[in-house]
């Protein structure tokens, strides 16, 4: 969730979608994102829309949150129907935060039940929750599995104490192998989130984090370069000179190290920052973002996308609860993405994934530039020539690191 909401057009009070949103909906997957805007403590680097208990007053408490979110599920159902969209069962559910596992398991189960009751789930639906290694127990994980969750994504970030301290993460890294084992024992698929490029992190620190993560036998890893967003406590520390950010070369070296170690351990990249053991281990929910599927984001500050319409909810949990209590859409603004903008978005998202962007989706005027990108070693030549199927733009490892250059070259 971005720190500031984008500038867009006003959203209508009833949330109604333009007719264009319904076009082609049958061919697109439908996912639900549920945002849980609570954390026990706020980490210094975090710019997500999240609040600690003391930051929130009445009307938006942890206890009442599931009920409020379910109000939006009901509203979503109403809006989709009245806007002429077909009723589609949900293929993926993703509960993110914040720290979703701060909510009682019963609340998480209630939320999932609400989604299931409203739209139904496709058989074998992927249902993920993020979790903090600190706030789960074997019992809680087992109950999540029973409630229908299939996957858990742990915010491990690092195995190195001084790196975790700089990130202000409070969990004990020694717990990570345990929580992974508990989750797998409960029948859940597991992903670990890692962050590289934290101030003070050496290449060896990063190697150690990767090795610890891989030693758990996990089937999915996300690895993100630390981005210090304006407005975070860490940004202030950097400005004051208390922390020094690594340069882009350091980040590039760490990305390459991650790709080397993960690949050697049998995990394959399927998106710039995501690696999975088999295609079935990839996050289907996240693939929906990059493939241009539809999803409804429930919760304060959550973003949604339905048929080229993107919108985002008001950020503050109290404002969010208040809108829903009055029967209004919590959307703060929206944009209808079309024309060149849609083409740029398609390129920007499509090149991120290993399956690549069909050459047909590259604006005609830019297609000749693909040859240059192949020559520069940014785009895979065989895929671009259609060696194993339709012609596609697939990034090389160098191209993954320079994806923005590729997008700027290929966008109209």
């Amino acid at each position, binding site marked *: *969730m*971005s720190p500031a909401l*984008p500038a*867009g057009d006003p959203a209508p009070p009833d949330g109604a979608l333009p007719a264009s949103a319904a076009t082609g909906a049958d061919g697109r997957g439908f996912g639900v*994102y549920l945002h849980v805007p609570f954390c026990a403590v706020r980490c210094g680097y975090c710019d997500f829309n999240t609040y600690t208990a003391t930051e929130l007053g009445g009307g938006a408490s942890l206890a009442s949150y599931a009920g409020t979110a379910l109000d939006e599920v009901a509203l979503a159902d109403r809006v989709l129907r009245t806007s002429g969209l077909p009723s589609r069962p949900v293929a993926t559910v993703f509960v993110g935060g914040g720290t979703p596992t701060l909510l009682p398991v019963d609340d998480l189960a209630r939320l999932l039940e609400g989604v299931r009751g409203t739209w139904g789930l496709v058989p074998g639906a992927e249902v993920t929750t993020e979790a903090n290694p600190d706030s789960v127990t074997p019992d809680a994980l087992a109950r999540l599995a029973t409630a229908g969750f299939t996957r858990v994504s742990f915010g491990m970030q690092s195995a190195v104490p001084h790196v975790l301290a700089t990130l202000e993460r409070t969990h004990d890294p020694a717990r990570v192998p345990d929580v992974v084992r508990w989750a797998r024992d409960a029948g859940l698929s597991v992903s670990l989130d890692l962050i590289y490029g934290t101030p003070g992190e050496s290449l060896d620190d990063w190697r150690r984090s990767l090795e610890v993560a891989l030693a758990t036998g996990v089937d999915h890893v996300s*690895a*993100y*370069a630390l*981005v210090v967003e304006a407005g975070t406590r860490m940004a202030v520390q950097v400005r004051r000179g208390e922390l020094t950010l690594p340069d*882009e*070369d350091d*980040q*590039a070296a760490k*990305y390459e190290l991650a790709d080397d170690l993960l690949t050697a351990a049998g995990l394959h990249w399927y998106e*710039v*920052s995501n690696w999975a053991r088999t295609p079935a281990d990839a996050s289907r929910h*996240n693939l929906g*973002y*990059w493939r241009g599927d539809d*999803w409804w*984001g429930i919760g304060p*500050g*959550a*973003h*949604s*996308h339905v048929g080229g319409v*993107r919108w*985002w909810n008001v950020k503050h949990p109290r404002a969010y609860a208040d809108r829903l209590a009055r029967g209004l859409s919590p959307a703060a603004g929206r*944009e209808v*993405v079309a024309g060149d*903008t849609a083409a*740029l*978005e398609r390129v*920007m*998202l499509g090149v*991120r994934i290993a399956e690549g962007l069909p050459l047909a989706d590259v604006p005609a005027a830019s297609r000749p530039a693909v040859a240059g990108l192949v020559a*520069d070693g*940014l785009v895979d030549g065989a895929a671009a020539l259609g060696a194993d199927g339709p012609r596609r733009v697939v990034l090389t490892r160098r191209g*993954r*690191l*320079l*994806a*923005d*250059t590729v*997008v*700027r070259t290929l*966008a109209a």
Partner: protein
Amino acid sequence: MVDDRRPTVQKPENAELPIPSATAAERIRPAATAPELLRNFCIIAHIDHGKSTLADRMLQLTGVVDARAMRAQYLDRMDIERERGITIKSQAVRMPWGVADASGTVQPYALNMIDTPGHVDFTYEVSRSLAACEGAVLLVDAAQGIEAQTLANLYLAMENDLQVIPVLNKIDLPAAQPEKYAEELANLVGGDPEDVLKVSGKTGVGVEALLDRIVQLVPSPVGDAGAPARAMIFDSVYDTYRGVVTYVRVVDGRLDPREKIVMMSTRATHELLEIGVTSPEPVPTKGLGVGEVGYLITGVKDVRQSKVGDTVTNNAKPAAVALGGYSEPKPMVFSGLYPIDGSDYPVLRDALDKLKLNDAALNYEPETSVALGFGFRVGFLGLLHLEIVRERLEREFDLDLISTAPNVIYDVTLEDLTEIVVTNPSEYPAGKIREVREPMVKATILTPSEFVGTIMELCQGRRGELQGMDYLSEERVEMRYVLPMAEIVFDFFDHLKSKTRGYASLDYEPTGDQAADLVKVDILLQGEQVDAFSAIVHKDKAYAYGVSMTAKLKDLIPRQQFEVPIQAAIGSRIIARETIRAMRKDVLAKCYGGDISRKRKLLEKQKEGKKRMKTIGRVDVPQEAFIAALSSDGGGGKDAKDAKKK
């Protein structure tokens, strides 16, 4: 700031001030004033020594402007002049004044105050203004003493045999040291320190006495009333509504309304649509006689048809010989001006055409730069002229411009004796060169004596030859150097100011040319020559230039997806090299549902930014890098970093 300049004296409604009565005023009616009753004078002063404020006070005391109509610095019309507190274009104002004769009767006089440009670039215009006068008020800030440019203009006035009246201004300032500087002025102009008048333009103290002194000391003009008219043009201003307004001083004969006149340098004839005096608004008159100063309107639209220094005569009874001292304005400094947005090129062309109407010294030719696109090579009188023109283009025509580093003109003789005039370093010939000549200047530097060593070091570093040195007083020294003009057009003045904590002042005038050992240094980006960065420098400095320019560019040009070598070369010989390492990562690690809109907007912005970049070979160079690299202070400091961010 502005409040300081507000008049603090009231309009002289009290009849005690010596403004001539109505009857007396009749004797000084324009076109019918005996030369004995005329006094033509100018004020020589440094930029901020208070000339305009003093002039304002004179306008008020003589009743020409009342307090309500008074704008601070009435005579400086253009906004830029007002903001910079300097006068670019001169004007003349006629003021009545009365002085009691021996019998105690108040005699009326008409005083023509001719405003002069205060800066070194406009020496020729100053010389013509001085030639229109018989006297000069030498105005010096009582807290600062005389400055080099004032000294240069004082020498010019003395060469023209003007009666010099030394005056110390701003005596109301706590920091004023009138005794000290009175002595300095007395030493310079000859005479007694007691005779130096002390005034305050701000409070008005001493200004009446100064007006009296002007009447007493400045000789009245002398001319032959019966001869064919000869009037000297000392200024020429384009006015949107009235066309060119020409300011003249009549030397012989007279000019009348509706008659045909001849410009003696071009033999062009014009009809005098209007003739008059400014006081301070234009007032049409029945003509102008011997010694009078006024304006002419002929309907021409371009100041080039009414050139400063030219002689105006009657068509019916033309003079045989023009007045002396005329010369064509000659550009000394050249710079390429390019619109940052290439589509603004036609706007720039129109803007230059318009400015040219009011600036006879401005000349330009279209040129094309591989790096910067379409623009103009523009010739200027000097650096201030360049700055003023550039600022007016940006302000009045809303243009964003890149100007290349200013350079001088080189006369190049090839081995086969072909001669080439180079006004753009990138046109410097590649073949065998027999000789290169570069323009030289005679520079005068006034400085507190403690900085003499510092200045010698600076000037020696700029290939200067010390010609002489005089102590004006114990603390102040006049140093005279001959320097290559190329060495002072870029950042010499900035260095002089910073090395002397702002105390030293500089004046220079061209003094011929001289053979020199010069080479052209080219800058190559990934093997491609960037014409905008080529420079002609002395052989001994080529290496330093190459090293500093490549280092600067390395900081200014963002990393590309490939390695970019930056080289400095003389011909095919590489003399310096830096490398911009290849960019390795630009991808945003996280791009989930909530990131998409923001990320897309970022990319759209980058695409817009890329449109503003110039591509040289395959290297994208932001415009800001050109600006920073070509400016004197863009050496990888704050400017450079800002440029990189954009």
